[in-house]
């Protein structure tokens, strides 16, 4: 805990929490503490790999609904205990790690699916629901959530909302922040509020968008209405090979003025030669791009014609549907151990986003910054989420295990340095701190560099809503 606590007071608090959520949903066991101390963040994994124990919560609670969350938050506020919210632990930014100890609130008991509404086209569920489970619920009535990130099976609805996640068909269907109607939120003082009943309105600022991306620092989202969609009559794929990245950007920008494909993924030559070769089987020099387009069959026909004509203008080689289909089938395979980077390697994804005039420049600037300052690092990238106005770059650095210090503090120092270098390069060329993984403890220090005086808006919200500063301390840079 943040301050020294005697056994007597600790036991008192524990009994209060047990009273709030039930004894069986309140734990001080070692296995629960260590399990909630390591998420997908490389530093936490490295720390555990070196046989060190990460900072742990003192008490883990698993409330079943907003009422129980409210009770927990009130207890935490009274005793001024840190409270860190945990979804499923699939985050890469250390957002769910209880670095300050105190209470860890695991949301997964809040996994109830309250309603599958095919008229309003949404599913109302607890935010502890694993997203794949609401996809199954949608599938049972012939619908789909159209939110298909690689972490679909291992992240909760709340986790995606808290870190502004995104899925592979985002170009057509949108990001998680486009997929929410109404939300229920427990404020740091324990009040339970609902955001507006419709997400588009003129009733002041959008409450949804204040809490989406707030990473548990402003409140705890406990329930959400998540949009569902009709299954497309047809989904087609087309793979292309571009000679250079510039042509690909121009082609993509022009295409998006005409229609919105569901999937657009452009791999730089380094990633084409590594991951795409390994998983999809493309063994060619150049930049591979996969495009999927879907919906009503007649419209898909027209879209295919437009796609082929547009990309031909920019010299893209049409590779047919085989590679694209293969990519779709294997899209999650990339992320399993054995295919994905893993310890002893050091690696990270420094995703950022910018308008078309800047995104390619950012890619080259980040590549140069990383490769120049850290010659032991390999830099690969793909561009996976596209808009009419711009795109995001999913750029990764990878350092071989032999070049990673064994000493955990030295490894931490190197990791921090690479990240700071890469993200600063992005910021300097018009990018943002992150596109869809969030900020967490990993990037908090860089938030002020991006926002400057605008940070006072976030800080003001934090101060007003959470005056005791108990909600997920040291995250989000506030």
């Amino acid at each position, binding site marked *: 805990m943040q301050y020294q606590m005697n056994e007597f007071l600790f036991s008192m608090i524990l009994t209060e929490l047990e009273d709030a959520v039930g004894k069986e949903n309140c734990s001080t066991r070692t296995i629960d503490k260590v399990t909630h101390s390591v998420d997908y963040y490389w530093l936490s994994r490295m720390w*555990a790999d070196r046989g060190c124990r990460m900072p742990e919560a003192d008490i883990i609670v698993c409330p079943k609904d907003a009422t129980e969350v409210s009770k927990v938050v009130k207890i935490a506020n009274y005793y001024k205990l840190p409270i860190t919210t945990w979804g499923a632990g699939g985050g890469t930014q250390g957002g769910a790690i209880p670095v300050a100890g105190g209470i860890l609130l695991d949301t997964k008991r809040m996994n109830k699916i309250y309603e599958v509404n095919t008229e309003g086209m949404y599913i109302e569920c607890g935010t502890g629901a694993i997203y794949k489970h609401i996809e199954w619920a949608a599938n049972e009535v012939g619908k789909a959530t159209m939110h298909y990130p690689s972490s679909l099976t291992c992240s909760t609805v709340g986790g995606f909302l808290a870190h502004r996640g995104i899925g592979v068909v985002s170009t057509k269907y949108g990001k998680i922040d486009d997929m929410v109607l109404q939300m229920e939120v427990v404020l740091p003082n324990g009040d339970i509020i609902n955001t507006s009943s419709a997400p588009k309105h003129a009733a002041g600022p959008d409450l949804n968008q204040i809490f989406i991306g707030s990473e548990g620092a402003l409140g705890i989202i406990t329930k959400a209405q998540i949009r569902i969609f009709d299954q497309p009559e047809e989904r087609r794929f087309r793979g292309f090979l571009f000679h250079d990245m510039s042509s690909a950007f121009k082609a993509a920008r022009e295409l998006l003025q005409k229609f919105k494909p569901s999937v657009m993924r452009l791999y730089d030559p380094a990633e084409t030669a590594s991951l795409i070769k390994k998983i999809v089987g493309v063994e060619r020099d150049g930049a591979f791009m996969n495009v999927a387009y879907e919906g009503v069959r007649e419209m898909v026909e027209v879209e295919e014609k437009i796609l082929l004509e547009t990309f031909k203008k920019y010299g893209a080689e049409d590779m047919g549907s085989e590679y694209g289909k293969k990519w779709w089938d294997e899209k999650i395979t990339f992320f399993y151990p054995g295919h994905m980077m893993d310890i002893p390697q050091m690696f990270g994804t420094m995703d950022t986003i910018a308008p078309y005039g800047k995104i390619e420049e950012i890619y080259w600037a980040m590549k140069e910054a990383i490769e120049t300052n850290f010659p032991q690092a390999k830099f690969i990238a793909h561009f996976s989420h596209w808009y009419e106005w711009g795109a995001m770059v999913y750029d990764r650095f990878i350092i071989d295990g032999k070049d990673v210090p064994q000493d955990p503090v030295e490894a931490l120092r190197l990791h921090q340095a690479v990240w700071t270098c890469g993200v600063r390069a992005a910021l300097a060329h018009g990018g943002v701190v992150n596109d869809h993984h969030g900020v967490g403890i990993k990037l908090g220090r860089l938030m002020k560099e991006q926002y400057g005086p605008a940070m006072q808006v976030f800080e003001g919200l934090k101060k007003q809503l959470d005056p005791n500063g108990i909600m997920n301390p040291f995250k989000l840079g506030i």
Partner: protein
Amino acid sequence: MNLSEKSKQHVDSCRFCWMCHHICPIGNATGHERSTARARALGISLVNRNAIDLSEIMDNIYECCTCGACVHTCVTGWDPVMFTKETRLQAALEGKLPSYINTLVDNCLDKGNAYGKTEICEKLAEAAKAHAKKTDTLLLLGTDARYMVCEQAVKAIRVLEKANVEFSVLADEPASGAQLDFLIGAADEAKQQMAAAADVMNAYDTVVIYDPNDAKVIKRIYKEYGVDVSAKTVTFTSYVAELIKNGDLKTTNTEKTVVYQDPYQLSRDLEETEEPREIIKAFATLNEMLLNRDETVWAGNLLMAEYMPAVMNEVAARRIFNAKSIGATALVTACVSEYASLKKAEQTDVEILSIEDLILG
């Protein structure tokens, strides 16, 4: 901890991988992060690195039902069940089993069943007595049916009687070793129990195995442990399906519409998915739940109910919810232990039936 190199490799792969987070029936029922393959792997890896003690993770190691859903869903073939079972064995060897597991193990060794039972119910004893004579075919009822769900064991006997099969039932049936295998893995005691059971089975031409859990262990695990069974071993469901196909077992339309709960031992381990469906279709109209066949979701068992009954109830209730989600009013299972688990969580709007219930009407 003295794990095999293969297990260590799997532990270190799974400890930081979340991809099967959605599929664990225990994790989904409890909502607890520790009830995941990655949490177990992380715990074991920290024991291997001397960061925590083995005794601190053993409760969690016994929260795994070994249903293999995580193994099945892993595209790269990592096997959390393997390292979980090896850890159980290691804890047994190091004397670090939780006391409630020790009790179950002792019961298996002393009384042949984890529940510590010494008598079977009168009805079963009577039904078995009628088949005491040695024939070519043995109906192996299994520990759960004999001691805990004896009315279903009697029904299994009645089904074969209805088809006029000549078969034997043993008054003192040996334990298959399935419970010890679950509790302490490849321990010598488990292998000895299996070998003794094999000796008994080998006196018959055919052994019809009623409990899918026994079937999995006898048909798969025995081979892994070097225990030979020369008798032909068949699952109860495949045997009954054959009786129907040959016209030996008469069928009637019950007018019921049901869904089928695939026991993972049949669908994933023995790849038997269609035989039970053939039986059901002979008596009722069959609909499918979203997660069926080798994607089935386990619905609880009797052994784990001995030490985590509330969780078993929740596991079963969630599977009944799956059935309700598609409008089912009756759920049929072919596993006696799952039947007992589901029956305990039965809700008024979904009837729980065994295959035998359906056949006997």
